[in-house]
C-alpha cells in the first residue's frame, strides 16, 4: 500500500496520528511525518486516517 499526503493541504491537525499511529506521527516541530509504504495489514487504520483528515490530504494508492 502506498500512502501519499498532500503537504500543501496538510494543516497539522494530527487526526491521522490518532487513527493510525503506526503510520503517522507529529515531529518535534509539530509537523506531520508518515510511513509512505506501510504494510497492507494496516489498511483499515490508514483508511480511517484518510477519512478523518479535516483537509482530506491523505490518499491511498494501491
Amino acid at each position, binding site marked *: 500500500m502506498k500512502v501519499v499526503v498532500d503537504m500543501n*493541504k496538510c*494543516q*497539522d*491537525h*494530527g*487526526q491521522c*496520528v*490518532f487513527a493510525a499511529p503506526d503510520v503517522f506521527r*507529529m515531529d518535534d*516541530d*509539530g509537523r506531520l511525518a508518515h510511513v509512505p509504504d506501510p504494510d497492507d495489514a494496516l489498511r483499515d487504520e490508514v*483508511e480511517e486516517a484518510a*477519512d*478523518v483528515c*479535516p*483537509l*482530506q490530504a491523505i*490518499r491511498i494508492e494501491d
Partner: protein
Amino acid sequence: MSGRIVVAGASLGGLRAAEQLRAAGWTCGITVIGDEPHRPYNRPPLSKEVLAGKASFASLAFTPKPSAADVEWRLGTRVTTVRLAERTVELHDGAVLSYDGLVVATGMRPRRLRCPGPVEGRHTVRTIDDAQVLRDELTRPGVRVVVIGAGFIGCEVAATAVGLGAAEVTVVDPLPLPMVGPLGEMLARVLLTRHEERGVAFVLGQGVTAFEGDDRVTGVVLSDGSVLPADVVVESVGSVANTEWLDGNGLDLSDGVLTDQHLRVGGRPDVVAVGDVARFPNARYDGVPRRVEHWSVPTDSAKHAAKVLVGGEAGLAPFAPLPTFWSDQHDFRLQSFGAPALGLGDVRVLDGDIAGDVLVGYHRDGRLVGVVALGGPSVTRAAARFRAELLKQPALISQGALS
C-alpha cells in the same frame, strides 16, 4: 435485505454512509439523493479558505472510495416525502423510489432572522454557492461588514473578513461573550480580546430587531434602537434541521430526528440517521439525546449506522463517539476533544498560560470531560495526551453522574 438502500442527503454524511454500507457488506443498490447540484464537498473551508480565495471548489470535493464507485447519485433534487410503512420515498422531481433501507442524512440549513427590512445584502455560509457570492461582496473596497451571531461560523467569517481587508467588521450577539456556549467564560474572554486585537469589533448583549435600507441592506437596527451601518450582513445564528420530509410518520422531529443508541429511527430496523440531523444519546456521556454539529460526526455515525442497517445491532456496543472539533480564526486554532459543554461549571488551565498558548480542561463532578487547546503545537500535543485519557474513561452513565 436485498434491493436498494436510499441515502437522503449527499454531503459528507451521505457519502460516508454509502462507503460504509459497502464496507459493511451491502452489495446491492445504493441511491444517494441531494438537493445541491454538487457531489459531496468539504464545508469547513467555506468560512475560511474559500472565503479568503485560497481554495477552489475542485480542492473541496471529496474523493469517494473505490467501493462506492457504483453508487447512483441523484443530485439537484431532494426527498419531499417518505412513507416509512410502505418503504417509499418521493422526490421533488416526482420520482417514487422503493427501498429496503433508508439513511437519513439531510443535515441542517442556516436559521434566518425574521426581522423587517430588505433581504438583499444578507448572507449565510452553508454551501459553496453561498461562500462564492459572499466572497464577491467582502472583497469590495471599503466594505463594512456586520456579522450577526458570535458562534464558530460568525467568528471565523469575521476573522476572514478582516484578513480580506474589510474596512469595518463588527460582530453582534445577544450573549455577553463570543462562543461562550461551547467554550465557557474563561476562554470566551480570551477569544474576545484576541479578536479585538486583530481588528474585529464586538457589540455584545444586543439583539437585532430590523434591517435598514430600501432595495438593499444599509444598516442593522439593534435592540437598544441604535443602528450599525452595514454594506454586507452575515447571519450566523444557528441552524435548522432538514426533517420536513419525514413528517407524517409519527417520528420525534422536535430537534433533528431522534434516534436510539444505535442511530435507528422510530424503532425501525430499516431506518438510521447520520450526521448533524441525528439526535442521538451518546453512551459515553449522560445518555441525553443531542444533535452534534461537529465535522467528525458524519464519518463516525455513518460507520456505526451502516453496520446496524446491514447486519443489525448484534455484537455492537452502543454508539459512543469522542466528540472533537476545531476552529481556525486569524492566526490561532482552537482544538477540542471530549465534551467541554458538559463541564462549564469547573474550568481549569491544564497547560500553558491564558495569555499565550493554553490548554483548558472542563470537569463535571470533579472528572475531566473535555479539553480545548488554543494555540500552537505545544498545547495541541498536550491536548492529545488528554484525549487518550478521555477515551479511557468509563461512561458517565455507569457512574450515576445523572443524579
